[in-house]
């Protein structure tokens, strides 16, 4: 079968879509709204530190962050093609989208692991 990169990006997009749909709303509700407004008490720093020091937690964070980014990269790429009719620049757009996702993922890998 002819090798084609599209299935690879689409898998990451799909996985990212699912992960972000499942995890991100509650996370943003906590870190972005409930904690800052004091609706829910922020766990102590020590506890958070303890949590994040365990490997599975860090891997989970990495997975959520990087897959979400790939979800964005793929979707945004097609939004630019269609919404703004930039199909002619498809190479540059693809490099920009997936490139950014890869770059931030590498950075998060460095930070977390």
């Amino acid at each position, binding site marked *: 079968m002819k090798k084609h990169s599209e299935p690879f990006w689409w898998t990451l997009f799909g996985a990212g879509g699912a992960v972000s749909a499942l995890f991100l709303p509650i996370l943003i509700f906590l870190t972005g709204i409930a904690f*800052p407004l004091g609706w829910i008490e922020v766990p102590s720093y020590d506890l958070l530190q303890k949590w994040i020091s365990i490997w599975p937690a860090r891997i989970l964070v990495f997975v959520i962050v990087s897959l979400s980014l790939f979800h964005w990269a793929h979707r945004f790429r097609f939004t630019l093609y269609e919404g703004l009719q930039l199909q002619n620049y498809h190479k540059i757009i693809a490099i920009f989208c997936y490139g950014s996702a890869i770059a931030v993922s590498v950075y998060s890998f460095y930070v977390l692991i």
Partner: protein
Amino acid sequence: MDSKKYKPQMGIFWWTDRWSSIKFILRELTSVAVAVYSIIFLFYVSSILQGKKTFEEFSESLKSPAFIALHCFILLCLVFHSITWFNLAPQAMVIKLGEKKVPGIVVALMNYAGWFFISLAILWLVTNLLGT
């Protein structure tokens, strides 16, 4: 010799013509919210890793009204993302139990249930394990 044909062109803002296309573009643009928040979340976690001081400073800055407003907006986008994502799931996922096809609504409900339990688990973790 062939007679000429009229070739309609789609305008650059074609998606403003119909409510369904606007909804489509909005759905696609939620991916920006996903990316923005995943980066914020990455900073949040990395601030924990960088020490108590950094974390507290970062937490403090999140209290600014601008940040809260931004987060509210992103939350709205993310909820829209989750709902549209789960609603489309049954079309892509056809599950068969033996001879029978699982109805689409069941597949969608399974997704919603997953969303609900993950959210509840995280909430429970944060509130009940507080201080232990």
